[in-house]
């Protein structure tokens, strides 16, 4: 090939990688083959910077049916059922074209779920934006929220939760992480592992166009000004097509016609065909002339790399071709037999009656490079993360005003403006709707429910990736516990800057270690996940942002707890201990504009004891409401419970620290519960036995939230502030 260097640069391959390729295949690759390598060896497909570290995370457990490596993780929930779930990023496409970027992010994660035979039952979205004060950011926010709504609503799958944080760190690189959860009978799980040489390979769904070519490589490169011109590579989503594809696939999966199935996501036909064949230890031969095409004169590499949405590749049983075609025809979908499995472990790509590419699968999959990148603690950790946050905050003269400001700040304030655009009640299974600590989805035909949440405070992870990541796991578990469920398993989406930057690599490794130790301590496996590197613009990285998606189980829906205050006269009890911990807090940011100080201490062991205690109390029917303390501290939690229950409260705090620091401290492992007065002694005793701090701090009642002689605000004013919107 001429201009090898130029081509390599365009394909994001290094000279060393090219040498490796020629060494393995014993010749120069042709252009189609080189594109296939560039996709399979991209960071996005090969995890070449992250693989060794990801292996540290615990991924097994008694309920885990399928761990990382498949389209999604699968965990048993009894009754012959399993939950299937995963979270994935769509950051770069959403920054370039927010509506379609976010929409296709949802589309992609839903395909990962129904590919495994599961009917998706819920979507959650974890979003990070810059401060919502300029037009560009408002355009991105509106577009992303509308894109999620546009796709999920049309599919008829409820979007039941997630988070939205705002911070200047995401000004030029927003994050859109979508999580989907499905339910499947545990004996009807489909995998991407091919079997049976000679079995036909089918292509179904949308026709292939040139959209998204470069997608996997784009996700593996940083933003520069040039990226803004990359618009044509963003895929356009067609949720109607995906709805038909989902129904057709689920219908087909009730039969015995297919042996393996995989969606065409990043790197499209290339990764799906290579991965399916490689997992089965077989080879695959495909004829590109048989691929349904939307555009004319597409080159072989364009067809192989296209990331057109709403497409699936499946392996049928030989002799069942007609039956497979009939199902897709019923749903008016394009279906085409494009090839077959072969014994020899290689991929053979034909077009125009010529072999266009012929490559050994082991080289593409197993020999992908692995990099041990240089890691170094960033200077910022020693400078910004060691200051004493509380000393920087002057005590407010007017507590009411600062409290109202905190409650209405974009990150703490209600996200009703977003979730009212999401159809969260379709499916008639949403028992606990958005706005509570976690969502609760019932499973019809059983008494069970599944609890779902996403969490990740990146100000903490910026100040301490290890502690912040542990906190994300703890908070997710606490949110699950607060609605009365037990944590089951985790999916993660790890959003970081450029791994070739030693600071970023250090953050990444610390974060993995933080997740690992928290998950080990609490006995919660990580069953699926996604790494998104290169979230940087012009050399500036985002905050390290690991997002934890957690699924929990509730054996009977009767055990559910909601955050709203229930009855006047109920006692308000704080489980866990408040420390003077305002480092990285919303309060510090509100008052000083700073993201600094030590983040709250984290102890997964204590977290486990707190949530086990809550669970035990709930089993004894003593817990009337529960909600965890997180951003904004206990004052914000109490306010939310008051607003939700439309009831006031009177708190009598015994101050250990300056009152504002105590009210707004973000100490972890704390839960606000309410209980009938007669149960308070029993609750205190149980807490003491489990070595958990427990204080009765006030009582539900009235029309105002009153804290000693410091705060007095009407519930109405709290509500208006909280729901103010952007």
């Amino acid at each position, binding site marked *: 090939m001429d201009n090898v260097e130029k081509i390599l640069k365009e394909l994001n391959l290094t000279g060393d990688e090219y040498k490796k390729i020629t060494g393995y295949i014993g010749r120069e690759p042709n252009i189609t083959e080189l594109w296939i390598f560039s996709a399979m060896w991209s960071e996005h497909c090969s995890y070449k910077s992250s693989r060794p570290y990801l292996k540290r995370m615990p991924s097994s457990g008694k309920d885990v049916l399928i761990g990382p490596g498949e389209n999604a993780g699968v965990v048993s929930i009894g009754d012959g059922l399993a939950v299937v779930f995963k979270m994935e990023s769509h950051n770069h496409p959403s920054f370039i074209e927010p509506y379609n970027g976010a929409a296709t992010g949802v589309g992609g994660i839903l395909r990962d779920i129904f590919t495994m035979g599961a009917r998706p039952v819920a979507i959650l979205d974890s979003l990070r934006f810059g401060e919502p004060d300029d037009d560009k950011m408002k355009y991105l926010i509106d577009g992303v929220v509308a894109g999620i709504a546009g796709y999920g609503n049309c599919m008829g799958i409820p979007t039941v939760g997630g988070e939205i944080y705002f911070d200047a760190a995401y000004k030029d690189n927003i994050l859109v992480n979508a999580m989907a959860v499905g339910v499947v009978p545990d004996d009807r799980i489909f995998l991407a592992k091919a079997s049976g040489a000679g079995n036909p390979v089918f292509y179904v769904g949308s026709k292939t166009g040139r959209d998204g070519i470069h997608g996997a490589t784009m996700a593996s490169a940083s933003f520069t000004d040039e990226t803004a011109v990359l618009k044509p590579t963003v895929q356009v989503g067609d949720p109607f*097509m995906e709805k038909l594809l989902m129904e057709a696939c689920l219908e087909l999966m009730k039969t015995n016609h297919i042996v393996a199935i995989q969606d065409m996501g990043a790197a499209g036909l290339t990764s799906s065909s290579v991965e399916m064949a490689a997992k089965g230890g077989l080879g695959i031969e495909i004829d590109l002339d048989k691929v349904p095409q939307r555009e004319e004169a597409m080159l072989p590499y364009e067809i192989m790399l296209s990331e057109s949405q709403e497409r699936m590749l499946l392996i049928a049983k030989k002799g069942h071709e007609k039956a497979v075609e009939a199902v897709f025809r019923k749903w008016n979908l394009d279906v085409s037999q494009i090839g077959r499995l072969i014994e020899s472990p290689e991929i053979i790509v034909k077009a125009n009656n010529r072999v266009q590419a012929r490559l050994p699968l082991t080289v593409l999959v197993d020999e992908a490079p692995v990099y041990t990148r240089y890691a170094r603690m960033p200077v910022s950790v020693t400078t910004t993360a060691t200051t004493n946050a509380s000393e920087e905050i002057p005590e407010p003269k007017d507590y009411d005003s600062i409290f109202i400001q905190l409650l209405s700040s974009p990150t703490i304030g209600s996200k009703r403006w977003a979730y*009212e655009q999401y159809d969260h*009640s379709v499916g008639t299974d949403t028992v606990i709707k958005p706005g509570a600590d976690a969502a609760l989805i019932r499973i019809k035909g059983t008494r069970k429910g599944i609890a779902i949440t996403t969490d990740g405070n990146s100000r903490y992870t910026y100040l301490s990736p290890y502690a912040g990541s542990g906190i994300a796991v703890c908070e997710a578990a606490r949110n699950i516990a607060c609605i009365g469920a037990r944590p089951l398993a985790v999916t993660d989406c790890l959003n970081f800057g450029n791994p070739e930057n030693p600071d970023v690599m250090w953050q990444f490794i610390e974060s993995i270690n933080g997740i690992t130790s928290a998950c080990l301590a609490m006995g919660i496996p990580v069953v699926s996940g996604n790494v998104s590197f290169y979230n940087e613009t012009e050399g500036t990285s985002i905050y390290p942002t690991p997002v934890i998606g957690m699924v929990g189980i509730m054996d009977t*829906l009767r055990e559910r707890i909601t955050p709203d205050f229930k009855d006047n006269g109920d006692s308000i009890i704080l489980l866990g201990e408040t420390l003077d911990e305002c480092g990285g807090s919303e309060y510090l940011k509100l008052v000083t504009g700073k993201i600094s100080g030590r983040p709250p201490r984290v102890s997964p062991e204590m977290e486990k004891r707190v949530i086990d205690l809550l669970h035990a109390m709930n089993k004894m029917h003593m817990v009337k409401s529960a909600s965890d303390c997180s951003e904004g501290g206990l004052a914000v939690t109490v306010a939310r419970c008051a607003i939700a229950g439309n009831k006031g409260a009177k708190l009598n705090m015994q101050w250990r620290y300056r009152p504002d620091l105590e009210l707004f401290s973000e100490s972890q492992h704390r839960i606000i519960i309410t209980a009938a007065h007669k149960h308070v002694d029993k609750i205190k005793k149980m807490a003491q036995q489990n070595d958990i701090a427990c204080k009765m701090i006030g009582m539900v009642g009235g029309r105002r939230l009153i804290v000693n002689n410091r705060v007095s605000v009407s519930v109405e004013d709290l509500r208006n502030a909280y729901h103010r919107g952007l």
Partner: protein
Amino acid sequence: MPKIKAGVIVFPGTNCDRDTYYALKQTMGCEVDSVWYETKTLRKYQLIVIPGGFSYGDYLRAGALARFSPVMEALREYTEKKGLILGICNGFQILLEAMMLPGAMQRNDTLKFICKDVQVRVERNDTPFTLLYKKGDRIQIPIAHAQGNYYGSEQTLASLEKQNQIVFRYCDESGNTTEQSNPNGSLHNIAGLCNSETTILAMMPHPERASDSTLGNDEGRKIFLSIKKALS
């Protein structure tokens, strides 16, 4: 007494069919079939529900493409035999596009999809769909749509009012049909309409999502129970 037979029509893109199926079974205990959009006769049913969703992706206009499905011919024949039809959300939009009820749906005046609980007032209880409510009852019920902004010409609206065809109107917590309580800009706060024979009810709110106390709201349940009573 033989069980009531109900059919839930499924167009490509319909997505509330399973919810509706479940609600019909749970509330009415009737026999329910999913009816594929290519079906040519509906003679065996006493109740047909056109459920919510995005038939044909809402492409062109919500309901515009579904209207030309084979099952819509069957539905006209079914109507002549006075069979009951309940159109919910996208079902309402389809019935308007098919001109089985007058008027049209525009985009919500907020220009956004809206999913939330709203209040509606029951304007008449002498229909097979509302006979267990009292006239003036206020019920809380979820909406979930992007195009629920009902439009009818002045003559159409006058005729609807005169013939008492408005069954539900958006209202506030005290039952007043104010502009503030109107979530989408719908003229005359219209949330649900019937034909003059009261055999067709079309409504934007989702009664199938408000029929089960586990979900925190069963104020829409009486719609299904009313139908059951009317057909028994």
